[in-house]
């Protein structure tokens, strides 16, 4: 008898700054629900990087011509602008993910620009509830997804470094509610 493994469709939401990917691997042996949010390089960053490099090079060039200084300054400025471009174009955070294993727990992962990865695992019985909060700062207001963890005083943020829009947070929140059996609250909405 042949057993067909069912692969649920991967869904994807994209906006100017972030891209959300949902991998849902469902097979009889294990159920892993992975949600990734990737940071996209925005056009403005490229623009600023190129602009600053251009400004620096042209200043150095005109200085070396006018003041008749050595070619060393021009070489240094070229090196500096190459470094600046590299700095601007590199993203501090590449990707943040959450992997939900309903039998075991939840793994939160942050991948930084240089390839460094930070993991955090929270066992399923320690999670009391996932919550969507509105956070207010002196200049803006945004949504964040957090977990209420038994034994911890503060909420655990699912996405520590990035702020994805609420339409990307909702499917993750629903998946977390289902995994932690907080289904009762879904009925009210």
């Amino acid at each position: 008898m042949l057993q067909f493994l069912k692969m649920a469709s991967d869904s994807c939401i994209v906006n100017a700054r972030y891209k959300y990917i949902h991998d849902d691997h469902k097979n009889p042996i294990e159920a892993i629900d992975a949600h990734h949010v990737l940071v996209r390089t925005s056009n403005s960053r490229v623009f600023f990087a190129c602009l600053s490099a251009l400004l620096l090079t042209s200043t150095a060039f005109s200085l070396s011509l006018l003041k008749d200084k050595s070619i060393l300054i021009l070489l240094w400025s070229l090196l500096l602008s190459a470094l600046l471009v590299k700095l601007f174009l590199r993203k501090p955070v590449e990707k943040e993910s959450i992997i939900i294993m309903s039998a075991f727990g939840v793994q939160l992962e942050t991948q930084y620009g240089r390839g460094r990865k930070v993991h955090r695992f929270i066992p399923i019985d320690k999670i009391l509830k996932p919550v969507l909060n509105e956070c207010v700062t002196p200049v803006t207001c945004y949504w964040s997804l957090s977990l209420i963890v038994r034994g911890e005083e503060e909420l655990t943020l699912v996405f520590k470094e990035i702020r994805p829009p609420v339409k990307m947070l909702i499917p993750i929140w629903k998946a977390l509610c289902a995994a932690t059996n907080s289904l009762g609250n879904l009925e009210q909405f």
Partner: protein
Amino acid sequence: MGERLKYRILMVSDFFYPNFGGVENHIYYLSQCLLKLGHKVVVMTHAYGKRSGVRYMIGGLKVYYVPWKPFLMQNTLPTFYGTLPIIRTILIREKISLVHGHQAFSTLCHEALMHACTMGYKVIFTDHSLYGFADAGSIHMNKVLQFTLADVSQAICVSHTSKENTVLRSGLPPEKVFVIPNAVDTAMFKPASERISSDEIVIVVISRLVYRKGADLLVEVIPEVCHLYPNVRFIVGGDGPKRVRIEEMREKHSLQERVEMLGAVPHAKVRSVLISGHIFLNSSLTEAFCIAILEAASCGLLTVSTRVGGVPEVLPDDMVVLARPDPMDMVQAIEKAISMLPKIDPQAMHLRMKKLYSWHDVAKRTEIVYDRALRCSNQNLLERLSRYLTCGAWAGKLFCLVMIIDFLFWHLLQVLQPAKDIEEVPDIILPNCQHGEKPGGFL
């Protein structure tokens, strides 16, 4: 009258819960009554200590405690343009149609009104206090008020005296100013079920013991009344810089048995203090409306008050005895009140107050003001600038400059953070909703 339009209102003030006071209670009760009428109300204020972020109060009232630190007398630091990003974000995400600011002495209110005008929203202002014209502080504040109110759509004052005062200070045309008196929560302020005995007459004073509230008058009046009437006792609730003077007066005339000092009375306990008395004494030197005497009348007390500001407009003549803010006049007024006491029926007074004052009535009248405000025509920048120029020779040009920079800053923000990136908040309906409406929200 067909179906009324439902509005989405943003109330802005520096003064809100967890502080207790006239303005705070006004905003709270008005918001609750507007929610019952079907409108959506959001309140914005500054953070109080650790209380920062979004909170929900009874009835689904959403409050934004914005983390700007207060710097002077509960007011946020006036930075002119600093609050523009957060105000714009809140206005867009809550889909606000009207901005309602409270209290002339609130910097957050002025800034919010200024930014809301720039962004094209309709703006309403409620003034709760009377202010002077003579001293340096008042002159500057009146100038600021002229600027802010130059393009407000409508204004509300709590008494006719207050309307006169506001119109003179701000140069607003009187047709734009409505008078909607405050009200009192008669369900909370009920007289005692059993009348207290009249052998000993108890006079209650509850106010902040500061100069403005006439604490100095009390120092003169209390010993005189105690001397003339051996069966009169005083209960003084409240705290402040003048408390020391009253304590000294007590010592000097040996009135410890007859004058009881309670210290600061929390708002929840005010009723229990009021119902232990027969007469309520208010000695304020200036008052736009005076909710304290409403609370006293609702509890069945006869009021003796100074005839200042809007006080004569508050109560009918048989419930209040008025006097000039002079000690001898006040003593005579107390004499008259004591002779009127046998004819007073607290329950009848309470029922009359219930009919005269109610927050639902205030909310309905405020709705009418909102309707009028939304029918005002939109104005572009040039028309508004021309109005500012009439504010004064130097001030007018300064105001124009401030508004032009505000306008440019707003456009810069529209480029950096486009409105479509700010997500609108779904209306979260609480689980025990009354009408069985289909809940909106995330699903």
